Protein backbone atom coordinates (compact mmCIF):
# COMPACT_ATOMS: atom_id res chain seq x y z
CA UNK A 1 0.00 0.00 0.00
CA UNK A 2 1.29 3.43 -0.83
CA UNK A 3 2.16 5.82 1.94
CA UNK A 4 -0.12 8.72 0.94
CA UNK A 5 -2.26 7.88 -2.09
CA UNK A 6 -5.93 7.56 -1.06
CA UNK A 7 -4.96 8.35 2.51
CA UNK A 8 -6.13 11.89 3.29
CA UNK A 9 -5.76 11.30 7.04
CA UNK A 10 -2.10 10.43 6.60
CA UNK A 11 -1.64 13.64 4.59
CA UNK A 12 -3.44 15.80 7.14
CA UNK A 13 -1.25 14.32 9.87
CA UNK A 14 1.81 15.84 8.16
CA UNK A 15 0.71 19.35 9.13
CA UNK A 16 0.70 20.16 12.83
CA UNK A 17 0.04 23.53 14.44
CA UNK A 18 3.69 24.52 14.53
CA UNK A 19 5.52 21.82 12.56
CA UNK A 20 5.31 20.18 9.16
CA UNK A 21 6.73 16.83 8.21
CA UNK A 22 9.83 16.65 6.03
CA UNK A 23 7.97 14.45 3.52
CA UNK A 24 6.29 17.58 2.18
CA UNK A 25 9.65 18.44 0.67
CA UNK A 26 11.28 15.15 -0.20
CA UNK A 27 8.58 12.59 -0.95
CA UNK A 28 7.97 12.09 -4.68
CA UNK A 29 4.58 10.46 -4.13
CA UNK A 30 3.39 13.54 -2.26
CA UNK A 31 4.71 15.65 -5.11
CA UNK A 32 2.60 13.68 -7.58
CA UNK A 33 -0.44 14.03 -5.34
CA UNK A 34 0.19 17.77 -5.20
CA UNK A 35 0.02 17.85 -8.99
CA UNK A 36 -3.17 15.77 -9.03
CA UNK A 37 -4.98 17.51 -6.21
CA UNK A 38 -3.44 20.73 -4.89
CA UNK A 39 -2.76 22.21 -8.32
CA UNK A 40 -6.20 21.13 -9.57
CA UNK A 41 -8.27 22.34 -6.61
CA UNK A 42 -6.70 25.79 -6.34
CA UNK A 43 -6.68 28.78 -8.69
CA UNK A 44 -3.28 28.74 -10.35
CA UNK A 45 -1.69 31.64 -12.23
CA UNK A 46 -1.35 31.01 -15.97
CA UNK A 47 -0.09 34.25 -17.47
CA UNK A 48 -0.84 37.89 -18.20
CA UNK A 49 -3.27 39.02 -20.88
CA UNK A 50 -0.64 41.42 -22.29
CA UNK A 51 1.24 38.32 -23.48
CA UNK A 52 -1.62 37.64 -25.93
CA UNK A 53 -2.82 41.07 -27.08
CA UNK A 54 -4.18 40.07 -30.52
CA UNK A 55 -6.52 37.37 -31.78
CA UNK A 56 -4.60 34.16 -32.31
CA UNK A 57 -1.73 35.17 -30.00
CA UNK A 58 -0.73 32.34 -27.73
CA UNK A 59 1.62 31.62 -24.84
CA UNK A 60 2.57 28.13 -23.72
CA UNK A 61 3.20 27.33 -20.07
CA UNK A 62 2.31 24.82 -17.37
CA UNK A 63 -0.19 24.50 -14.57
CA UNK A 64 1.48 22.24 -12.05
CA UNK A 65 3.22 19.89 -14.44
CA UNK A 66 0.50 19.96 -17.12
CA UNK A 67 1.19 21.68 -20.44
CA UNK A 68 -1.32 24.41 -21.33
CA UNK A 69 -1.63 27.12 -23.92
CA UNK A 70 -3.21 30.48 -23.19
CA UNK A 71 -4.69 31.96 -26.35
CA UNK A 72 -6.66 35.02 -27.47
CA UNK A 73 -9.79 33.59 -29.08
CA UNK A 74 -11.63 35.08 -32.07
CA UNK A 75 -14.17 36.69 -29.70
CA UNK A 76 -11.27 38.41 -27.86
CA UNK A 77 -11.67 36.30 -24.73
CA UNK A 78 -8.65 34.52 -23.25
CA UNK A 79 -8.86 30.72 -23.35
CA UNK A 80 -6.66 28.22 -21.56
CA UNK A 81 -6.41 24.87 -23.35
CA UNK A 82 -4.45 21.76 -22.50
CA UNK A 83 -1.61 21.79 -25.00
CA UNK A 84 -2.16 18.26 -26.24
CA UNK A 85 -3.47 17.05 -29.55
CA UNK A 86 -6.49 14.80 -28.86
CA UNK A 87 -5.23 12.49 -31.58
CA UNK A 88 -1.80 11.23 -30.51
CA UNK A 89 -0.83 13.59 -27.70
CA UNK A 90 1.61 15.91 -29.47
CA UNK A 91 1.90 19.38 -27.98
CA UNK A 92 0.10 21.44 -30.59
CA UNK A 93 1.59 24.86 -29.84
CA UNK A 94 5.36 24.60 -29.98
CA UNK A 95 6.84 28.02 -29.36
CA UNK A 96 6.82 29.82 -26.02
CA UNK A 97 4.70 32.49 -27.68
CA UNK A 98 3.49 33.28 -31.16
CA UNK A 99 0.42 33.87 -33.30
CA UNK A 100 -1.45 30.87 -34.62
CA UNK A 101 -3.93 32.79 -36.77
CA UNK A 102 -7.50 31.50 -36.74
CA UNK A 103 -6.65 27.96 -35.75
CA UNK A 104 -4.00 25.66 -34.31
CA UNK A 105 -2.60 23.00 -36.61
CA UNK A 106 -0.96 19.92 -35.12
CA UNK A 107 2.49 19.33 -36.66
CA UNK A 108 2.03 15.54 -36.64
CA UNK A 109 -1.13 14.83 -38.75
CA UNK A 110 -2.46 18.32 -39.52
CA UNK A 111 -5.56 18.10 -37.37
CA UNK A 112 -6.74 21.67 -36.86
CA UNK A 113 -8.48 23.30 -33.91
CA UNK A 114 -10.23 26.61 -33.40
CA UNK A 115 -8.70 28.80 -30.70
CA UNK A 116 -11.36 27.62 -28.25
CA UNK A 117 -10.01 24.10 -28.76
CA UNK A 118 -12.88 22.71 -30.84
CA UNK A 119 -11.97 20.45 -33.74
CA UNK A 120 -11.99 22.27 -37.06
CA UNK A 121 -10.87 19.62 -39.54
CA UNK A 122 -8.98 16.36 -39.97
CA UNK A 123 -7.39 15.22 -43.25
CA UNK A 124 -9.00 12.19 -44.94
CA UNK A 125 -12.05 12.62 -42.78
CA UNK A 126 -13.92 9.77 -44.51
CA UNK A 127 -11.59 7.31 -42.85
CA UNK A 128 -13.44 8.00 -39.60
CA UNK A 129 -16.90 7.25 -41.02
CA UNK A 130 -18.69 4.54 -39.07
CA UNK A 131 -15.86 4.30 -36.56
CA UNK A 132 -17.76 5.86 -33.67
CA UNK A 133 -15.36 8.81 -33.90
CA UNK A 134 -18.05 11.29 -32.88
CA UNK A 135 -18.39 9.57 -29.54
CA UNK A 136 -14.60 9.53 -28.95
CA UNK A 137 -13.10 12.31 -26.86
CA UNK A 138 -10.79 13.12 -29.79
CA UNK A 139 -13.75 14.54 -31.72
CA UNK A 140 -14.12 17.19 -29.02
CA UNK A 141 -10.77 18.74 -29.96
CA UNK A 142 -8.21 20.16 -27.55
CA UNK A 143 -9.60 20.09 -24.03
CA UNK A 144 -10.22 23.51 -22.52
CA UNK A 145 -9.31 24.05 -18.89
CA UNK A 146 -12.80 24.24 -17.39
CA UNK A 147 -12.44 27.24 -15.07
CA UNK A 148 -10.64 30.41 -16.15
CA UNK A 149 -10.81 33.85 -14.57
CA UNK A 150 -9.10 37.04 -15.70
CA UNK A 151 -8.61 39.60 -12.94
CA UNK A 152 -7.25 42.90 -14.25
CA UNK A 153 -5.39 41.02 -16.98
CA UNK A 154 -4.00 38.35 -14.62
CA UNK A 155 -5.16 34.98 -15.90
CA UNK A 156 -5.83 32.19 -13.41
CA UNK A 157 -7.37 28.77 -13.89
CA UNK A 158 -8.67 25.86 -11.86
CA UNK A 159 -8.11 22.47 -13.48
CA UNK A 160 -10.99 20.80 -11.67
CA UNK A 161 -14.38 21.64 -13.16
CA UNK A 162 -15.89 22.06 -9.70
CA UNK A 163 -14.44 23.61 -6.60
CA UNK A 164 -14.00 26.86 -4.74
CA UNK A 165 -14.88 30.00 -6.68
CA UNK A 166 -12.25 32.52 -7.75
CA UNK A 167 -13.44 35.35 -5.49
CA UNK A 168 -13.90 33.08 -2.52
CA UNK A 169 -10.45 31.59 -3.00
CA UNK A 170 -8.56 34.87 -3.23
CA UNK A 171 -10.78 37.20 -1.20
CA UNK A 172 -9.05 40.42 -0.15
CA UNK A 173 -5.66 39.19 -1.35
CA UNK A 174 -6.50 40.53 -4.82
CA UNK A 175 -5.77 43.96 -3.35
CA UNK A 176 -2.05 43.41 -4.04
CA UNK A 177 -2.62 42.84 -7.76
CA UNK A 178 -5.04 45.77 -7.77
CA UNK A 179 -2.42 48.00 -6.18
CA UNK A 180 0.25 46.97 -8.67
CA UNK A 181 -2.10 47.75 -11.58
CA UNK A 182 -3.18 51.05 -10.00
CA UNK A 183 0.48 52.12 -9.97
CA UNK A 184 0.11 52.62 -13.71
CA UNK A 185 -1.38 56.06 -14.41
CA UNK A 186 -3.46 54.30 -17.07
CA UNK A 187 -4.38 51.36 -14.83
CA UNK A 188 -2.62 48.95 -17.16
CA UNK A 189 0.37 46.64 -16.99
CA UNK A 190 2.41 45.00 -19.72
CA UNK A 191 4.79 42.10 -19.29
CA UNK A 192 8.14 43.58 -20.33
CA UNK A 193 11.85 42.91 -20.38
CA UNK A 194 11.89 39.14 -20.79
CA UNK A 195 11.84 36.50 -18.07
CA UNK A 196 14.67 35.29 -15.84
CA UNK A 197 14.64 31.51 -15.48
CA UNK A 198 16.52 30.00 -12.55
CA UNK A 199 16.76 26.27 -11.87
CA UNK A 200 16.75 25.08 -8.24
CA UNK A 201 17.52 21.64 -6.88
CA UNK A 202 14.95 21.84 -4.14
CA UNK A 203 11.23 21.54 -3.50
CA UNK A 204 9.01 24.35 -4.79
CA UNK A 205 7.57 25.03 -1.32
CA UNK A 206 10.98 26.06 0.03
CA UNK A 207 10.79 29.07 -2.27
CA UNK A 208 7.21 29.84 -1.30
CA UNK A 209 8.10 29.61 2.41
CA UNK A 210 11.09 31.88 1.93
CA UNK A 211 9.03 34.76 0.51
CA UNK A 212 7.65 35.62 3.93
CA UNK A 213 10.65 34.44 5.94
CA UNK A 214 11.89 37.71 7.42
CA UNK A 215 14.46 36.21 9.77
CA UNK A 216 16.81 35.13 6.97
CA UNK A 217 17.81 38.28 5.04
CA UNK A 218 20.21 39.68 7.62
CA UNK A 219 21.84 36.25 7.93
CA UNK A 220 21.83 34.61 4.50
CA UNK A 221 22.27 37.90 2.63
CA UNK A 222 25.01 39.32 4.80
CA UNK A 223 27.36 38.04 2.11
CA UNK A 224 25.71 39.94 -0.74
CA UNK A 225 23.71 42.89 0.55
CA UNK A 226 26.06 43.25 3.53
CA UNK A 227 29.07 43.41 1.21
CA UNK A 228 27.27 45.92 -1.01
CA UNK A 229 26.75 48.23 1.97
CA UNK A 230 30.36 47.82 3.09
CA UNK A 231 31.78 48.53 -0.37
CA UNK A 232 29.49 51.52 -0.76
CA UNK A 233 30.65 52.95 2.57
CA UNK A 234 34.15 53.22 1.08
CA UNK A 235 32.92 55.61 -1.63
CA UNK A 236 34.04 59.23 -1.27
CA UNK A 237 31.72 61.50 0.73
CA UNK A 238 29.07 63.13 -1.41
CA UNK A 239 28.93 60.41 -4.08
CA UNK A 240 25.27 59.96 -5.03
CA UNK A 241 23.87 56.65 -3.83
CA UNK A 242 23.58 54.32 -6.81
CA UNK A 243 20.23 52.65 -7.50
CA UNK A 244 21.82 49.24 -7.02
CA UNK A 245 22.90 50.07 -3.46
CA UNK A 246 19.43 51.44 -2.73
CA UNK A 247 17.99 48.10 -3.81
CA UNK A 248 20.51 45.93 -1.96
CA UNK A 249 20.90 47.73 1.35
CA UNK A 250 17.46 47.11 2.95
CA UNK A 251 18.06 43.35 2.83
CA UNK A 252 20.42 43.71 5.78
CA UNK A 253 18.09 45.80 7.90
CA UNK A 254 18.01 44.69 11.55
CA UNK A 255 15.45 42.27 13.01
CA UNK A 256 13.55 45.16 14.55
CA UNK A 257 12.82 46.60 11.11
CA UNK A 258 11.29 43.34 9.93
CA UNK A 259 9.33 42.91 13.18
CA UNK A 260 7.73 46.29 12.72
CA UNK A 261 6.95 45.96 9.03
CA UNK A 262 4.28 43.39 9.81
CA UNK A 263 2.68 40.43 8.05
CA UNK A 264 -0.90 40.19 6.86
CA UNK A 265 -2.47 36.75 6.59
CA UNK A 266 -5.55 36.01 4.47
CA UNK A 267 -7.53 32.82 4.13
CA UNK A 268 -6.61 29.95 1.78
CA UNK A 269 -2.85 30.31 2.07
CA UNK A 270 -2.47 33.88 0.83
CA UNK A 271 -0.63 36.57 2.73
CA UNK A 272 2.01 39.27 2.51
CA UNK A 273 4.90 40.82 4.32
CA UNK A 274 5.35 44.59 4.52
CA UNK A 275 2.20 46.08 6.02
CA UNK A 276 3.43 49.23 7.79
CA UNK A 277 6.85 49.43 6.17
CA UNK A 278 9.02 47.32 3.91
CA UNK A 279 12.36 47.01 2.19
CA UNK A 280 10.74 48.71 -0.83
CA UNK A 281 9.48 51.75 1.10
CA UNK A 282 12.43 54.12 0.85
CA UNK A 283 13.39 54.10 -2.82
CA UNK A 284 14.18 57.46 -4.42
CA UNK A 285 11.32 59.07 -6.31
CA UNK A 286 11.32 58.54 -10.08
CA UNK A 287 11.26 61.96 -11.80
CA UNK A 288 7.92 62.74 -13.42
CA UNK A 289 6.08 59.74 -12.00
CA UNK A 290 4.28 61.45 -9.14
CA UNK A 291 2.93 64.17 -11.42
CA UNK A 292 1.50 61.59 -13.81
CA UNK A 293 -0.11 59.71 -10.93
CA UNK A 294 -1.68 62.89 -9.56
CA UNK A 295 -2.96 63.81 -13.00
CA UNK A 296 -4.52 60.36 -13.33
CA UNK A 297 -5.93 59.82 -9.84
CA UNK A 298 -5.79 63.07 -7.90
CA UNK A 299 -3.39 63.66 -5.04
CA UNK A 300 -5.24 61.81 -2.30
CA UNK A 301 -5.73 58.60 -4.22
CA UNK A 302 -2.24 58.72 -5.73
CA UNK A 303 -0.86 59.02 -2.20
CA UNK A 304 -2.90 56.03 -1.11
CA UNK A 305 -1.78 53.87 -4.05
CA UNK A 306 1.90 54.68 -3.62
CA UNK A 307 1.63 54.50 0.16
CA UNK A 308 1.19 50.73 -0.08
CA UNK A 309 4.69 49.32 0.36
CA UNK A 310 3.82 45.62 0.41
CA UNK A 311 6.89 43.45 0.19
CA UNK A 312 6.05 39.89 -0.93
CA UNK A 313 2.49 38.72 -1.51
CA UNK A 314 1.98 34.98 -1.79
CA UNK A 315 -0.88 33.88 -4.00
CA UNK A 316 -1.10 30.30 -2.89
CA UNK A 317 0.02 27.92 -4.18
CA UNK A 318 2.89 29.09 -6.34
CA UNK A 319 3.31 32.76 -7.25
CA UNK A 320 4.62 35.81 -5.44
CA UNK A 321 3.86 39.40 -6.45
CA UNK A 322 5.76 42.58 -5.51
CA UNK A 323 3.53 45.58 -6.19
CA UNK A 324 6.08 48.35 -5.50
CA UNK A 325 8.69 46.63 -7.71
CA UNK A 326 6.28 45.27 -10.37
CA UNK A 327 7.56 41.73 -10.39
CA UNK A 328 5.86 38.35 -10.34
CA UNK A 329 7.72 35.16 -9.53
CA UNK A 330 6.33 31.77 -10.48
CA UNK A 331 7.66 28.74 -8.60
CA UNK A 332 7.28 25.98 -11.15
CA UNK A 333 7.20 22.49 -9.63
CA UNK A 334 9.20 19.96 -11.68
CA UNK A 335 9.84 17.18 -9.14
CA UNK A 336 10.00 16.83 -5.36
CA UNK A 337 13.58 18.09 -5.52
CA UNK A 338 13.49 20.30 -8.60
CA UNK A 339 11.93 23.72 -9.17
CA UNK A 340 12.15 26.27 -11.94
CA UNK A 341 11.75 29.86 -10.84
CA UNK A 342 10.50 32.34 -13.42
CA UNK A 343 10.84 36.00 -12.52
CA UNK A 344 8.65 38.28 -14.63
CA UNK A 345 8.63 42.07 -14.80
CA UNK A 346 5.94 44.57 -15.73
CA UNK A 347 5.88 47.97 -17.35
CA UNK A 348 3.48 50.40 -15.71
CA UNK A 349 1.79 51.78 -18.82
CA UNK A 350 2.02 55.57 -18.83
CA UNK A 351 4.80 55.73 -16.22
CA UNK A 352 8.40 56.86 -16.91
CA UNK A 353 10.77 54.27 -18.39
CA UNK A 354 13.06 54.61 -15.39
CA UNK A 355 10.54 52.62 -13.32
CA UNK A 356 10.87 49.66 -15.66
CA UNK A 357 14.63 50.09 -15.59
CA UNK A 358 14.59 49.89 -11.78
CA UNK A 359 12.29 46.86 -11.89
CA UNK A 360 14.67 45.11 -14.27
CA UNK A 361 17.68 46.02 -12.15
CA UNK A 362 15.98 44.63 -9.06
CA UNK A 363 15.14 41.41 -10.89
CA UNK A 364 18.70 41.09 -12.19
CA UNK A 365 20.33 41.79 -8.83
CA UNK A 366 18.01 39.61 -6.74
CA UNK A 367 16.37 36.92 -8.92
CA UNK A 368 18.79 35.95 -11.70
CA UNK A 369 20.88 32.76 -11.81
CA UNK A 370 23.77 35.22 -11.85
CA UNK A 371 22.47 37.11 -8.79
CA UNK A 372 24.51 37.10 -5.61
CA UNK A 373 21.35 37.35 -3.50
CA UNK A 374 19.92 34.43 -5.45
CA UNK A 375 23.10 32.45 -4.77
CA UNK A 376 22.71 32.99 -1.03
CA UNK A 377 19.14 31.68 -1.08
CA UNK A 378 19.70 28.77 -3.45
CA UNK A 379 22.58 27.54 -1.32
CA UNK A 380 20.40 27.27 1.78
CA UNK A 381 17.48 25.68 -0.08
CA UNK A 382 19.69 23.07 -1.69
CA UNK A 383 21.46 22.34 1.58
CA UNK A 384 18.03 21.89 3.19
CA UNK A 385 16.92 19.55 0.42
CA UNK A 386 19.93 17.36 1.23
CA UNK A 387 19.76 17.88 4.99
CA UNK A 388 16.15 16.73 5.19
CA UNK A 389 17.25 13.23 4.23
CA UNK A 390 18.70 12.91 7.73
CA UNK A 391 16.98 10.69 10.27
CA UNK A 392 16.49 11.80 13.82
CA UNK A 393 14.62 15.01 13.06
CA UNK A 394 11.50 14.48 10.97
CA UNK A 395 9.83 17.87 11.30
CA UNK A 396 10.34 21.40 10.07
CA UNK A 397 9.63 24.02 12.66
CA UNK A 398 7.29 26.93 11.97
CA UNK A 399 6.41 27.84 15.56
CA UNK A 400 7.69 31.42 15.60
CA UNK A 401 5.09 33.67 17.30
CA UNK A 402 2.40 31.01 17.09
CA UNK A 403 -0.96 31.95 18.55
CA UNK A 404 -3.67 29.26 18.69
CA UNK A 405 -6.27 31.97 17.99
CA UNK A 406 -4.83 32.50 14.49
CA UNK A 407 -6.38 29.31 13.15
CA UNK A 408 -9.88 30.60 12.61
CA UNK A 409 -8.95 34.08 11.42
CA UNK A 410 -9.31 34.95 7.76
CA UNK A 411 -7.56 38.32 7.74
CA UNK A 412 -5.18 39.54 10.41
CA UNK A 413 -1.99 41.54 10.78
CA UNK A 414 0.79 40.49 13.07
CA UNK A 415 4.49 40.90 13.91
CA UNK A 416 6.59 40.84 10.73
CA UNK A 417 8.84 38.05 11.96
CA UNK A 418 5.93 35.73 12.65
CA UNK A 419 5.79 32.47 10.74
CA UNK A 420 2.01 32.76 10.67
CA UNK A 421 1.90 33.05 6.88
CA UNK A 422 3.88 29.83 6.50
CA UNK A 423 1.47 28.10 8.89
CA UNK A 424 -1.39 29.54 6.83
CA UNK A 425 0.13 28.01 3.69
CA UNK A 426 0.45 24.61 5.29
CA UNK A 427 -3.15 24.65 6.52
CA UNK A 428 -4.24 25.51 2.98
CA UNK A 429 -1.93 22.81 1.65
CA UNK A 430 -3.56 20.11 3.78
CA UNK A 431 -7.01 21.39 2.87
CA UNK A 432 -6.57 21.55 -0.92
CA UNK A 433 -4.53 18.34 -1.04
CA UNK A 434 -7.31 16.31 0.55
CA UNK A 435 -10.55 17.97 -0.62
CA UNK A 436 -10.98 15.67 -3.57
CA UNK A 437 -9.33 12.62 -2.05
CA UNK A 438 -11.29 9.56 -0.96
CA UNK A 439 -10.10 7.55 2.01
CA UNK A 440 -9.65 3.95 1.02
CA UNK A 441 -10.08 1.44 3.81
CA UNK A 442 -6.87 -0.42 4.56
Amino acid sequence: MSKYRDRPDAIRALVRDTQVHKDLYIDQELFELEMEHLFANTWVYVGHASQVPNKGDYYTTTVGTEPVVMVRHSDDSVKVLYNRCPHKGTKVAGEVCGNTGRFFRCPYHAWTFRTDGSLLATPLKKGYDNTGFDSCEASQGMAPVPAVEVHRDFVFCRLNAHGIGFREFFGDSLSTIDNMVDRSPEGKLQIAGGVLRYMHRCNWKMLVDNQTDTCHPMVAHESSAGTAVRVWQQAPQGTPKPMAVELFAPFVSPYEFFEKMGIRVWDNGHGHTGVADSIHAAYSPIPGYWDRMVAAYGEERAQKILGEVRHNTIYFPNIMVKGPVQTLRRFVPLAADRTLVESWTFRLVGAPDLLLERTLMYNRLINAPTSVVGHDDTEVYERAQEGLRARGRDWINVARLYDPAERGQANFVTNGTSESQMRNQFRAWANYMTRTMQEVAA
Partner: protein
Amino acid sequence: MTTSTSQQLIDFVYAEARLLDEQRFEDWLNLFTDDAFYWMPLAPGQQDPHLHGSLMYEDKLLLRIRIERLAGARTFSQQPRSRSHHLLQAPAIESADSDNGRYTLRTAFHYVETRLDRQELYAGWAAHELVTQGGQLRIKLKRVDLVNCDAAFGNINLFM
Protein backbone atom coordinates in the same frame (compact mmCIF):
# COMPACT_ATOMS: atom_id res chain seq x y z
CA MET B 1 48.68 57.54 -28.53
CA THR B 2 50.20 54.14 -28.00
CA THR B 3 49.26 51.78 -30.80
CA SER B 4 48.63 48.15 -29.99
CA THR B 5 49.64 45.43 -32.40
CA SER B 6 47.23 42.65 -33.31
CA GLN B 7 49.22 40.26 -31.19
CA GLN B 8 49.04 42.56 -28.17
CA LEU B 9 45.26 42.79 -28.50
CA ILE B 10 44.88 39.04 -28.77
CA ASP B 11 47.27 38.44 -25.89
CA PHE B 12 45.22 40.85 -23.78
CA VAL B 13 42.09 38.74 -24.24
CA TYR B 14 43.94 35.55 -23.37
CA ALA B 15 45.51 37.16 -20.31
CA GLU B 16 42.14 38.41 -19.08
CA ALA B 17 40.68 34.88 -19.17
CA ARG B 18 43.74 33.55 -17.39
CA LEU B 19 43.34 36.03 -14.54
CA LEU B 20 39.77 34.77 -14.06
CA ASP B 21 40.76 31.12 -14.07
CA GLU B 22 43.56 31.86 -11.59
CA GLN B 23 41.04 33.79 -9.45
CA ARG B 24 43.21 36.92 -9.45
CA PHE B 25 40.08 39.03 -9.27
CA GLU B 26 41.70 42.29 -8.11
CA ASP B 27 44.09 42.21 -11.05
CA TRP B 28 41.17 41.33 -13.29
CA LEU B 29 39.07 44.25 -12.07
CA ASN B 30 42.01 46.58 -12.69
CA LEU B 31 41.73 45.76 -16.40
CA PHE B 32 38.45 47.69 -16.52
CA THR B 33 38.06 51.43 -16.96
CA ASP B 34 36.23 53.26 -14.17
CA ASP B 35 33.14 53.62 -16.38
CA ALA B 36 33.24 50.03 -17.65
CA PHE B 37 30.39 47.54 -17.84
CA TYR B 38 30.28 43.77 -17.85
CA TRP B 39 27.17 42.71 -19.75
CA MET B 40 25.53 39.32 -20.17
CA PRO B 41 22.38 39.77 -22.27
CA LEU B 42 19.26 37.68 -21.71
CA ALA B 43 18.12 37.64 -25.33
CA PRO B 44 20.04 36.77 -28.52
CA GLY B 45 21.20 39.93 -30.30
CA GLN B 46 19.92 42.13 -27.45
CA GLN B 47 20.62 45.83 -28.01
CA ASP B 48 19.25 47.44 -24.85
CA PRO B 49 20.64 46.72 -21.37
CA HIS B 50 18.28 49.17 -19.64
CA LEU B 51 14.71 48.38 -20.72
CA HIS B 52 15.22 44.68 -21.26
CA GLY B 53 16.37 42.18 -18.67
CA SER B 54 19.94 40.87 -18.61
CA LEU B 55 21.73 38.15 -16.70
CA MET B 56 24.32 40.73 -15.70
CA TYR B 57 24.80 44.39 -16.47
CA GLU B 58 27.30 45.51 -13.90
CA ASP B 59 29.40 48.59 -13.41
CA LYS B 60 32.67 48.57 -11.51
CA LEU B 61 30.94 49.02 -8.15
CA LEU B 62 28.82 45.90 -8.66
CA LEU B 63 31.80 43.94 -9.92
CA ARG B 64 33.74 45.00 -6.82
CA ILE B 65 30.86 43.86 -4.60
CA ARG B 66 30.99 40.46 -6.31
CA ILE B 67 34.72 40.13 -5.83
CA GLU B 68 34.68 41.14 -2.19
CA ARG B 69 31.75 38.82 -1.58
CA LEU B 70 33.67 35.89 -3.03
CA ALA B 71 36.33 36.50 -0.38
CA GLY B 72 33.84 36.87 2.50
CA ALA B 73 33.87 34.58 5.54
CA ARG B 74 30.06 34.20 5.48
CA THR B 75 29.66 33.62 1.75
CA PHE B 76 28.13 30.20 2.29
CA SER B 77 27.38 29.59 -1.39
CA GLN B 78 31.13 29.68 -2.00
CA GLN B 79 32.05 27.20 0.71
CA PRO B 80 33.60 25.36 -1.02
CA ARG B 81 34.61 27.74 -3.79
CA SER B 82 33.72 27.46 -7.45
CA ARG B 83 36.48 27.09 -10.04
CA SER B 84 36.41 28.06 -13.70
CA HIS B 85 38.05 27.11 -16.96
CA HIS B 86 38.01 29.21 -20.13
CA LEU B 87 38.74 27.66 -23.50
CA LEU B 88 39.02 30.44 -26.06
CA GLN B 89 39.01 30.35 -29.81
CA ALA B 90 41.53 32.77 -31.39
CA PRO B 91 40.14 36.30 -30.82
CA ALA B 92 39.16 38.14 -33.99
CA ILE B 93 39.83 41.87 -34.25
CA GLU B 94 36.51 43.31 -35.37
CA SER B 95 37.57 46.94 -35.49
CA ALA B 96 40.73 48.91 -34.81
CA ASP B 97 40.92 52.68 -34.43
CA SER B 98 44.64 52.99 -33.79
CA ASP B 99 44.55 56.78 -33.83
CA ASN B 100 42.33 56.76 -30.77
CA GLY B 101 43.53 53.48 -29.27
CA ARG B 102 40.10 51.85 -29.49
CA TYR B 103 39.57 48.27 -30.53
CA THR B 104 36.88 45.61 -30.51
CA LEU B 105 37.51 41.89 -30.45
CA ARG B 106 35.22 38.90 -30.65
CA THR B 107 36.16 35.59 -29.09
CA ALA B 108 34.21 32.34 -29.18
CA PHE B 109 34.56 30.40 -25.95
CA HIS B 110 33.64 27.35 -23.97
CA TYR B 111 33.46 28.03 -20.26
CA VAL B 112 33.33 25.45 -17.51
CA GLU B 113 32.32 26.27 -13.95
CA THR B 114 32.57 23.66 -11.27
CA ARG B 115 31.75 23.33 -7.60
CA LEU B 116 31.69 20.17 -5.53
CA ASP B 117 30.70 17.33 -7.89
CA ARG B 118 28.82 19.52 -10.31
CA GLN B 119 30.35 20.82 -13.52
CA GLU B 120 28.50 22.98 -16.03
CA LEU B 121 29.54 23.82 -19.58
CA TYR B 122 28.56 27.09 -21.22
CA ALA B 123 29.31 28.22 -24.78
CA GLY B 124 29.18 31.68 -26.27
CA TRP B 125 31.01 34.68 -27.61
CA ALA B 126 32.79 37.41 -25.70
CA ALA B 127 33.03 40.87 -27.21
CA HIS B 128 35.76 43.13 -25.79
CA GLU B 129 35.54 46.85 -26.33
CA LEU B 130 39.03 48.08 -25.47
CA VAL B 131 40.42 51.57 -24.98
CA THR B 132 43.92 52.82 -24.27
CA GLN B 133 44.49 54.65 -21.00
CA GLY B 134 47.95 55.79 -19.90
CA GLY B 135 49.49 53.58 -22.56
CA GLN B 136 47.63 50.50 -21.27
CA LEU B 137 44.77 48.59 -22.84
CA ARG B 138 41.64 48.65 -20.69
CA ILE B 139 38.18 47.09 -21.02
CA LYS B 140 35.35 49.56 -21.50
CA LEU B 141 32.76 46.89 -22.18
CA LYS B 142 32.90 43.14 -21.95
CA ARG B 143 29.82 41.59 -23.46
CA VAL B 144 29.20 37.88 -23.00
CA ASP B 145 26.59 36.32 -25.28
CA LEU B 146 25.73 32.78 -24.31
CA VAL B 147 24.43 30.66 -27.16
CA ASN B 148 21.56 29.65 -24.83
CA CYS B 149 21.22 32.97 -22.99
CA ASP B 150 17.46 32.48 -22.61
CA ALA B 151 17.70 29.01 -21.05
CA ALA B 152 17.06 28.17 -17.41
CA PHE B 153 20.33 28.05 -15.46
CA GLY B 154 21.43 27.01 -12.01
CA ASN B 155 23.90 29.22 -10.16
CA ILE B 156 26.50 30.96 -12.31
CA ASN B 157 28.93 32.07 -9.63
CA LEU B 158 32.02 33.42 -11.39
CA PHE B 159 32.80 35.40 -14.56
CA MET B 160 32.85 34.21 -18.16
